[in-house]
């Protein structure tokens, strides 16, 4: 029986439960030198001079380095596969340390010291003189004439402006009788909050530089470190041990290049550069805040006639993943709700804030909040049932996207909506909860989404796999794709067991990646791994089995095509007779004095497909209109991610995404001081991450429509769960109160003015106002 579809325990669960799993900080020599970075305390400035003399004089300080010491060449940081076409390469706009400070917290100098206390003391002794410049935090302000310019090459701070136009909106909207619905939707800057901070250490060995890093993308970081240091790519080795969550933040080169360079400055000694929690908040990456302006023209029956969308993404100070995040969201709009006349514009704009990078969902939680809020508003305005309206206007079965060639093969949307509707009893509750009065009001809401699997055709898709047959017949598997907590290694083990034909217990996955020995694979992002590594495993296993069965001829006298490997045995397929165990074969073959062979197979697989993944969220809330608080009482996610390799792990993954979605909806946002540009709540106390108190039971269902292009029928699941949660909650609040909230997070600060405007709460009497100020 196949192990595909079985909820087997994680292959790394024992070690993690026993507290034995080693992460970056657990592997570093405790006596390694410590590096600390000096962050600018202004939002925009040129560094005029830096006096390091006092810091250098402090006993225990090994070296102090400034933005005037680092290599001149700029480098990119995004965790994208490299492109050999210059026009498709990531923007190179970073230096290891910068002379042009572009956000509050930018890196201007670094200290290497014998211990942490000394390093921190030395930072305080560095004196920096700045030429302070005006700064800008808001996208619309940054695009104006005369706004402070962050990068000379980009007038009006516009990194990119792309469009998605078809049909003719201007003519179409002349049709009489159309109803126009317009809205502005705002999403906040949020952080990944992986519990393990970003961390790395670097040392030289045999003239090469090794970096051990908490990264999702070891092979990509190798390339970026080499680019940043201006050395040959082969001179860099990246080791990725177990990591404590990434969620996209670690799909970027963070401090690995600087750490490598610092080690090289101190003679190749081991240097540790570990971010504090505050640095993870301030100096790593964030989810882009994107502002949407949507206008739709619909017939009274709901038929979409024309749609306009403007998407303004706050890139922050540096490009990182840049416009790709915004463009992905924009391009999803006419796919989710096809419309004959569409005019979409997306702008990604630099501001003096920390850079936006990749974060779970890559632009989709933002756009789906806007689009699913807007869709609800349209249905409401037309007096249509919002679920029926969605069923009518959503991407139809057979829809093919012209660019990705993705296809909706099954009646997925109707299926997931039916399952979700039933689990929530949505139709009944939605009717029941309209027109409530009183302080506490309940409501239900829903939202749908689609998501890609992997990055083809935007970028290269490739995955490498190596299999080695041990003497006991166990296959040892190595891939370039990374375990970051999501359970990749377990899925890899299950797929290998299935593809080779051995029991799961016989499969040994080499978990940690080392670019010196790991086959090339680009890593954990784009919810790609099970899809692409599945193809790599299947392809490699075919080769592996072919070699085994051809060699087995010598011992079984059977033609290879009459044999197969099943449950760890070589069997004759004509009568299912077991000819020899794989262990017996492996041992015999390896020590065969005539025809010895160490059986291995390696395959690099290019993938030129992509796949639509689908789902929806149904949420039920109770709103305390007086205290402007929202409590999520029940929440259900339904996903069609194709074949589910491991239902228990898949469900856990979905629950984690739902939790992140609830935080995005109700509590999480990074606040910046308008006077200085400084991040105000960069710690886990003031940044309101969901705790176990903040959600109800997270209910998960899967509808299984195996993906035809996938080696194991799978498609994306890692990122999707977070996507539909915030708009489902927003629409539930709308059902409860009649108030449409168009900005996240929907915390009391936002609810209070909205509820006041809607007449749900009365203005406080004057004496209370005064009392409050006291």
């Amino acid at each position, binding site marked *: 029986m196949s192990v595909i579809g079985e*909820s087997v*325990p*994680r292959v*790394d*669960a*024992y070690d*993690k*439960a*026993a*507290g*034995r*799993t*080693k992460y970056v*900080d*657990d592997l570093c020599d405790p006596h390694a030198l410590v590096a600390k970075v000096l962050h600018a305390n202004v939002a925009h400035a040129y560094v005029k001079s830096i006096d390091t003399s006092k810091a250098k004089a402090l006993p*225990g300080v090994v070296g102090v380095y400034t933005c005037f010491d680092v290599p001149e060449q700029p480098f990119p940081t995004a965790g994208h596969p490299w492109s050999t076409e210059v026009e498709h390469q990531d923007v190179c706009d970073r230096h290891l340390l910068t002379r042009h400070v572009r956000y509050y917290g930018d890196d201007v100098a670094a200290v290497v010291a014998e211990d942490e206390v000394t390093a921190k003391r030395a930072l305080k002794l560095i004196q920096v003189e700045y030429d302070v410049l005006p700064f800008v935090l808001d996208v619309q302000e940054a695009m104006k004439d005369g706004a402070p310019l962050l990068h000379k090459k980009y007038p009006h701070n516009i990194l990119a402006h792309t469009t998605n136009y078809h049909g003719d909106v201007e003519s179409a909207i002349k049709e009489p009788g159309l109803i126009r619905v317009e809205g502005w939707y705002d999403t906040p800057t949020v952080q990944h*909050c*992986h*519990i*393990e*901070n970003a961390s790395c250490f670097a040392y030289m060995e045999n003239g090469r530089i090794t970096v051990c890093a908490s990264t999702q993308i070891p092979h990509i970081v190798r390339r970026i470190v080499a680019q940043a240091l201006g050395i040959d790519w082969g001179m860099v080795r990246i080791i990725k041990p*177990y*990591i*404590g*969550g990434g*969620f996209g933040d670690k799909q970027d080169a963070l401090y690995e290049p600087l750490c490598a360079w610092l080690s090289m400055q101190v003679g190749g000694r081991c240097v540790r550069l570990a971010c*504090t*929690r505050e640095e993870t908040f301030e100096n790593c990456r964030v989810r882009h805040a994107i502002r949407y302006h949507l206008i739709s023209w619909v017939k009274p029956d709901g038929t979409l006639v024309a749609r306009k969308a403007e998407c303004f993404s706050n890139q922050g100070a540096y490009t990182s993943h840049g416009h790709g995040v915004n463009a992905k969201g924009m391009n999803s709009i006419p796919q989710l709700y096809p419309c004959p006349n569409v005019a979409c514009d997306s702008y990604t704009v630099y501001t003096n804030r920390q850079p936006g990078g990749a974060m779970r969902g890559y632009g989709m939680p933002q756009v789906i909040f806007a689009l699913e809020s807007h869709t609800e508003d349209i249905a409401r305005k037309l007096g249509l049932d919002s679920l029926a309206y969605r069923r009518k206007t959503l991407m139809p079965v057979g829809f093919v996207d012209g660019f990705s060639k993705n296809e909706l093969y*099954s009646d997925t949307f109707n*299926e997931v909506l*039916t*399952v979700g509707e039933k689990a929530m009893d949505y139709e009944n509750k939605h009717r029941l909860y309209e027109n409530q009065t009183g302080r506490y009001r309940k409501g239900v809401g829903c939202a749908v989404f689609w998501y890609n699997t992997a990055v083809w055709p935007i970028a290269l898709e490739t995955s490498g796999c190596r299999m080695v047959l041990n003497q006991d017949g166990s296959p040892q598997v190595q891939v370039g794709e990374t375990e*970051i*907590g*999501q*359970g990749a290694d377990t899925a890899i083990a299950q797929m290998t067991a299935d593809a080779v034909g051995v029991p799961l217990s016989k499969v040994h996955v080499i978990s940690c990646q080392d670019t010196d020995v790991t086959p090339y694979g680009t890593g954990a992002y784009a919810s790609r791994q099970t899809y692409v590594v599945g193809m790599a495993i299947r392809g490699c296993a075919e080769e592996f089995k072919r070699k085994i069965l051809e060699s087995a001829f010598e011992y079984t006298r059977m033609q290879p095509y009459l044999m197969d490997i099943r449950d760890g045995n070589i069997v004759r397929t004509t009568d299912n007779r077991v000819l020899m165990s794989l262990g017996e074969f492996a041992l015999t073959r390896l020590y065969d004095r005539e025809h010895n062979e160490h059986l291995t197979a390696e395959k690099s697989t290019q993938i030129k497909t992509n796949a639509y993944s689908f789902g929806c969220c149904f949420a039920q809330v109770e709103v305390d209109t007086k205290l402007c608080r929202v409590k999520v009482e029940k929440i259900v996610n339904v996903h069609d991610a194709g074949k*589910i390799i491991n*239902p*228990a792990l898949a*469900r*856990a993954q979905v*629950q*984690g*995404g739902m*939790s*992140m979605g609830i935080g995005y909806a109700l509590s999480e946002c990074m606040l910046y001081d308008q006077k200085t540009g400084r991040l105000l709540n960069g*710690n*886990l*106390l003031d940044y309101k*991450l969901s*705790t*176990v*108190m903040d*959600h109800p*039971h997270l209910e998960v*269902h*899967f*509808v*299984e*429509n195996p993906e035809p292009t996938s080696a194991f029928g799978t498609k994306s699941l890692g990122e999707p769960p977070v996507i539909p949660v915030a708009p489902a909650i927003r629409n539930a609040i709308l059902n409860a109160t009649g108030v449409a909230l168009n900005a996240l997070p929907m915390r009391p600060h936002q609810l209070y003015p909205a509820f006041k405007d809607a007449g749900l709460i009365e203005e406080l009497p004057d004496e209370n106002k005064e009392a409050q100020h006291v």
Partner: protein
Amino acid sequence: MSDRQYRLVTCTINGRERTAMVDVRASLADMLRGEYSLTSVKIGCEVGECGACAVMIDGECFNSCIYLAIWADGKHITTVEGLTKPDGSLSDLQQAFVDETAIQCGFCTPGFLIEAESILEKGRIYTDQELRKLLSGHLCRCTGYDNILRAVRKVMYTRNGLPVPEETKEQPVVIQPEDIQ
């Protein structure tokens, strides 16, 4: 350096009496990781917000990042290494975390295990709401907490000799399209 002061700290760690000379400024987390290589003690924030560094001190759960090493003198300290039995087998609680898929990246896991162990050692049955409150000092970004809660609840019932209530057991629901009406 001249302003550094050291003090001898003797405490019982995972059942064994240990002594080390520690910097008076060091946290207990620093001491456990640095002196004794007890790397299950995870550093996530260093200000007592995330709970990843939790250890048991005389039966109570503390964030070891904001507990000075010198305060541990004479105390009994348990880390996750101490929950694992000498033969390497897992405790019922650790095993429940494995069985209920309560572990993903694993970075918050030791803190949750220690907190849960200190809760369960009280020998009481708590409601879900009470359990949630008791566990709320620990942040997890991977799991959404559901499976962690279920694992702790399961051990709470079994340790008290009670059957695990049916409604608290849950299997993932994978639905075939033909079964949807």
